[in-house]
């Protein structure tokens, strides 16, 4: 028995005897998750974080104080019974832990990897508060991932109620669509998921890179849907191939869920954005992930810029994903240009940390003024301005203010714009009577119902910019309302 194993046994024995004090739990070192070496992983697309071992997971779980108030649950968008599942892990009851998570979340292997825990469950963790650092709280996400990864998926397909004769159409096969499909199918409805791309999974497949979320995990979730009897139709663009009106009036669908996700990529509106070598993050990541541009010449036909020096604009997870993808596609120098300071970056702390380990240079308090091109129209550089932080703005973050006369030029051949998306107009344009707000996002009530009867919506197309877990949360709400509507 190793020292750590002995230590765990002692802790468990004390806990069983009711003698384990909080001060002793605070002494348990926060368990780091093993990762691939920072240099080695620059040249492969395999997952960076390798997951806890059993011993690490149980020690980490022992750090949890089992607070009576469980503040972590309040921080979770889908209200997973976190204290209970963490407790089960400490006891080595992994199946039990997974069952607890699955009461509320259908995609634990995904959420354990991509949720921004430090601003959700871990932000409110008492252990983190004690150390005045949310990253020192109990690593709830890593524990969620640990039990999800142990699930061998031995045909544990959720039970489906007897057929109701009602038909549900789900537009988009991303996280929201998957959840609605599972929940409405469980209620016995006939469910079809329509996907515009040639592969299902939405942002989890085209957007989030393999090194952060292996595609096999997403495929497993899709397979579960198929086994439940959900039909998945790819290459079907609702609004074009068929409209929502046609699906409901001619094709016999009784309810529709709109989960079409990210819309039109935003650009900066500066000179030079039409140069060759300027990408939206959506395009860059889609080419790299869904279309496997990293295998160009080895089976893939998808071209992507052969970049040497890349500037990524933005400070969110998508910016980190783009920068880290560029590294793996062979870029020698990758700059991450963000107009606020690192503290204001919306990206997950772990992604920021991993990006730095991979050699990405953070250029904070800077913003591009224009992109420079050569005579042939290729990007050759970017003129930037330095910024400083002023008074807090509407978002509560300090407003970045440009410093006059601080222009300087960086030498880049590729610019990836990762500053968010506007709403996709396709569904709105082709669905009469569907209420949109002034930004083009779909207006829904607290049950995720739109202005049209039987039509529900959630995720990015409603929220503007959501996360996987928020999309899932809305999917849950919508599916419950749809099941109620269809029963009535």
């Amino acid at each position, binding site marked *: 028995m190793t020292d750590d194993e002995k230590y765990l046994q002692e802790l468990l024995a004390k806990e069983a005897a009711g003698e384990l004090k909080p001060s002793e739990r605070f002494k348990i070192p926060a368990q780091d998750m093993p990762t691939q070496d920072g240099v080695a992983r620059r040249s492969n697309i395999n997952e960076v974080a390798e997951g806890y071992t059993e011993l690490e997971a149980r020690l980490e779980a022992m750090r949890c104080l089992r607070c009576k108030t469980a503040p972590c649950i309040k921080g979770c968008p889908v209200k997973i019974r976190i204290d209970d599942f963490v407790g089960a892990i400490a006891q080595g009851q992994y199946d039990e832990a997974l069952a607890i998570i699955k009461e509320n979340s259908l995609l634990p292997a995904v959420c354990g990897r991509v949720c921004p825990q430090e601003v959700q469950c871990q932000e409110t963790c008492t252990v983190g508060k004690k150390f005045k650092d949310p990253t020192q709280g109990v690593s709830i996400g890593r524990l969620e991932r640990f039990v999800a990864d142990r699930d061998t998926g031995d045909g544990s397909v959720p039970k489906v109620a007897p057929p109701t004769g009602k038909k549900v159409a789900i537009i988009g096969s991303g996280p929201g669509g998957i959840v609605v499909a599972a929940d409405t199918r469980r209620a016995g409805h006939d469910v079809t998921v329509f996907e*515009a*791309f*040639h*592969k299902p999974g939405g942002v989890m497949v085209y957007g989030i890179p393999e090194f952060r979320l292996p595609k096999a995990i997403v495929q497993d979730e899709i397979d579960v849907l198929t086994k439940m009897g959900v039909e998945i139709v*790819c*290459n*079907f*663009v609702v609004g*074009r*191939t*068929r409209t929502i009106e046609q699906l409901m009036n001619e094709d016999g669908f009784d309810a529709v869920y709109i989960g079409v*996700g*990210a*819309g*039109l*990529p935003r*650009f900066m*509106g500066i000179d030079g*954005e*039409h*140069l*060759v*070598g300027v*990408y*939206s993050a*959506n*395009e860059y990541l*889609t*080419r790299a992930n869904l*279309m*496997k541009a990293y*295998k*160009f*010449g080895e*089976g*893939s*036909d*998808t*071209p992507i*810029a*052969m970049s040497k020096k890349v500037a990524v604009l933005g400070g969110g997870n998508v910016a980190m994903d783009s920068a880290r993808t560029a590294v793996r596609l062979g870029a020698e120098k990758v700059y991450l240009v963000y107009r606020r300071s690192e503290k204001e970056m919306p990206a997950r702390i772990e992604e920021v940390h991993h990006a730095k380990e991979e050699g990405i240079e953070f250029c904070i308090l800077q913003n591009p003024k224009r992109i420079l091109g050569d005579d*042939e*129209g290729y990007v050759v550089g970017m003129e930037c301005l330095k910024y400083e932080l002023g008074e807090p703005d509407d978002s509560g973050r300090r407003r970045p203010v440009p410093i006059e006369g601080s222009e300087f030029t960086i030498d880049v051949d590729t610019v990836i714009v990762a500053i968010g998306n506007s709403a*996709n*107009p*396709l569904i709105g344009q082709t669905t009469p009577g569907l209420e949109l707000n002034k930004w083009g996002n779909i207006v829904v009530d607290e049950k995720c119902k739109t202005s049209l009867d039987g039509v529900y919506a959630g995720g990015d197309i409603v929220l503007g910019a959501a996360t996987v877990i928020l999309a899932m949360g809305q999917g849950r709400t919508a599916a419950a309302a749809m099941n109620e509507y269809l029963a009535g």
Partner: protein
Amino acid sequence: MIDVEAALVARARKPGQFVIIGVSDDYGERVPLTIAGVDAEKGTIRLIFQRVGKTTAEMADMKVGSDLGYVAGPLGNPTHIEKFGTVVCVGGGIGNAPLLPIATAMKAAGNELISILGARTKELVILEDEFAAISDELVVITDDGSHGRKGLVTEPLKEICQRKPQPDLVVVIGPAIMMKFCCETTRPFGVHTEVSLNTIMVDGTGMCGGCRVEVGGKTKFVCVDGPEFDGHEVNFDLMMRRLGAYKAQEQRAHEQYKEHRCKIGLDD
């Protein structure tokens, strides 16, 4: 030219719309192709393409009865069809293919139809009989004079614009450079000129932004705002640069494909 079984696309499609195809589910590039025709009864759409890169070469090498990886569509906004009066349809090379359904619909809407078909040489003039059957006036013109008039499409286009009364609308589909010069030809006459743009695209639903063009000084997406735009507002120079973005890599993929076919003993 191929006919592809895609019943839902055939049913929904209107003139001016396009599809995105892929030859394989996993690794292939996604290529936008304009729909040249449709057989609603058989549920097929007609795609006419020129063998220029790997994907089109693979499509050209397909035997009757084989499967494409996928077809998604119809995409883009349909052409606005109404009775304008006199409509001039100008096609360049392979552009005649997407132009035909538009010309047919314009004629059916009661317009007087003048068609100008241009190509480098005689062999590249396609669909001449089909245009002849619907046009009130047809001009065929080749760069080398091997068929019809000798010269560029801009010459007869200018002559027609000089007529009194002027044509009410010009629709141009062809290579970017040809559309650019057609727009320069009609601009002094103030004749509204619609062009159909075929830019590089990934998803075709507004998500990637790869197809963006500058129209009237604003960024527009060909897939959701187009593919047709007022040609006098389009910045063709920027668009042509972006079209050439992947030339070297496209060539490499095509070379590899040809090499591979030689190794397995096929022609090409």
